[in-house]
C-alpha cells in the first residue's frame, strides 16, 4: 500500500527500549505488516515500515492510550480521522482475545484507497466526542508513571514501585501502567498480583473495548 501514499509507523512502548522490544523487531514483527504489504523474501528479513522505540511512552501520553496494540489513523494533513482503537492486524493472538483481524484490515484497505471519503473515517463531531479533554486524574497518573520510570532507570526500584502504584490507582483503566510496571520487577512480590490474576478478575468484562466497525460492539 506504499504506492497509495500510505505509511505504517509502529511504536514500541517499552521502558527498557531495544533491550525488551528489540528481539521482537525482526522476523516476528513481519506478520504485523504482512497483511497490508507484500512480505519480503524469507532469506532477507528487514522491516519495511517505520519502527520506532518509545522508552518514555510519549505516544501513549500524547494520545491518551491505555493499552496495546492501539492505533490512530492520521490523514495527509496531519489530522486524526479515526481515534484510538484496538488494532490487531493478524490473528496470531486470536485464541486469547478473540478479535478477528480481517474486518479491521478491510477497513484499513478502504481508507488507503479512498482517504477521507472512506466510510471508516469518523465525522468531526464524533472525533470531538472521542477526543474530549482528559480526566485530570489521568493527567496526574501520567506524571506518576513518568517519575516511576525515571526512578527505575536511576536504580531506585522501591521508590519507582510506589509511583507506578500511584499511577495505576489514578488511572485504573490503563493496562499500560500495570503491565509495564509488572515487567520491571516481580509482580507477585511487589504488586501482589499477576497479569493472569487481573484478567481473571475481569470476570467476563472485556479486556479490549469493542472496535467501531459494522456489526461489532
Amino acid at each position, binding site marked *: 500500500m506504499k504506492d*497509495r*501514499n*500510505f*505509511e*505504517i*509507523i*509502529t*511504536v*514500541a*512502548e517499552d521502558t527498557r527500549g531495544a533491550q*525488551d*522490544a528489540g528481539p*521482537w523487531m525482526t522476523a516476528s514483527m513481519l506478520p*504485523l505488516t504482512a497483511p497490508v504489504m507484500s512480505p519480503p523474501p524469507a532469506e532477507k528479513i528487514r522491516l519495511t515500515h*517505520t*519502527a*520506532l*522505540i*518509545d522508552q518514555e511512552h*510519549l*505516544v501513549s*501520553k*500524547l*494520545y*491518551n492510550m491505555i493499552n496495546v*496494540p*492501539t*492505533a*490512530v*489513523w*492520521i490523514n*495527509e494533513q*496531519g*489530522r*486524526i480521522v479515526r481515534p484510538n482503537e484496538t488494532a490487531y492486524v493478524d490473528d496470531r493472538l486470536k485464541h486469547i482475545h478473540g478479535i478477528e483481524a480481517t474486518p479491521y484490515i478491510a477497513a*484499513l484497505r478502504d*481508507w*488507503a484507497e479512498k*482517504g477521507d471519503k472512506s466510510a471508516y473515517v469518523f465525522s468531526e463531531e464524533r472525533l*470531538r466526542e472521542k*477526543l474530549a479533554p*482528559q480526566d485530570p486524574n489521568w*493527567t*496526574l497518573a*501520567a*506524571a506518576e508513571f*513518568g*517519575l516511576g520510570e*525515571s*526512578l527505575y*532507570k*536511576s536504580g*531506585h526500584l522501591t*521508590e519507582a514501585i*510506589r509511583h507506578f502504584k*500511584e499511577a495505576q490507582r489514578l488511572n485504573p483503566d490503563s493496562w*499500560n501502567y500495570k*503491565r*509495564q510496571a509488572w*515487567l520491571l520487577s516481580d509482580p507477585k512480590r511487589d504488586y501482589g498480583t499477576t497479569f493472569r490474576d487481573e484478567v481473571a478478575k475481569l470476570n467476563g468484562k472485556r479486556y479490549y473495548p469493542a472496535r467501531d466497525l459494522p456489526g461489532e460492539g
Partner: protein
Amino acid sequence: MKHAPTTIVYDDVAVEIESAEAEGGQLWLTTGDLGRATRFEVKPQGVCRDSLCFPLPQAQRQEFLRDKAGKTWFNLTAFARLVQQPVAHESAADFSAWYFGLRSDQRQQLASLQAPDFTLPDLDGKLHSLSNFRGKKVFLVTWASW
C-alpha cells in the same frame, strides 16, 4: 530547606541540578539552571522558549521569582501550576527527583483534532518525526514486548 542532588525530568529529559532548593513542596532553581533543565528563559514578557511564552501574573511575581545570594531564583512548581502541568515528586535522604508532565497546551492538542507531533528513534538510533510524514496517510500503532 534541603540540599541534595536533584533530578529534574522535563519533556522526558532528566537533568541533574546541584543547587536546587526544595521548601514546602516548592522547587526553586536559579534562572541558569532553569534554562539547563527546561530550556525556558525568564524574559520581560514572560517565561519563554522558542515561540512559546507564558506571561507571569504581575501581582504574584514574588511567587515565581526571588533574588538570593546574588542570583535570581525561579519557582518551577509555581510555574507548573500556572501552565497546568502535573508534577510528581520523590525525595529520600540522598536524592530528590521531580517529574514535570504535559502542560495544558500540550494536552489540548488532541481536541484540535490535529495529531500531536513526536520525534522518536528507530533501532539504529535514527530519529523520525510524525510531521515528516505530512502528505501521507499514517497508520500509527503502538505495541509492546510485555
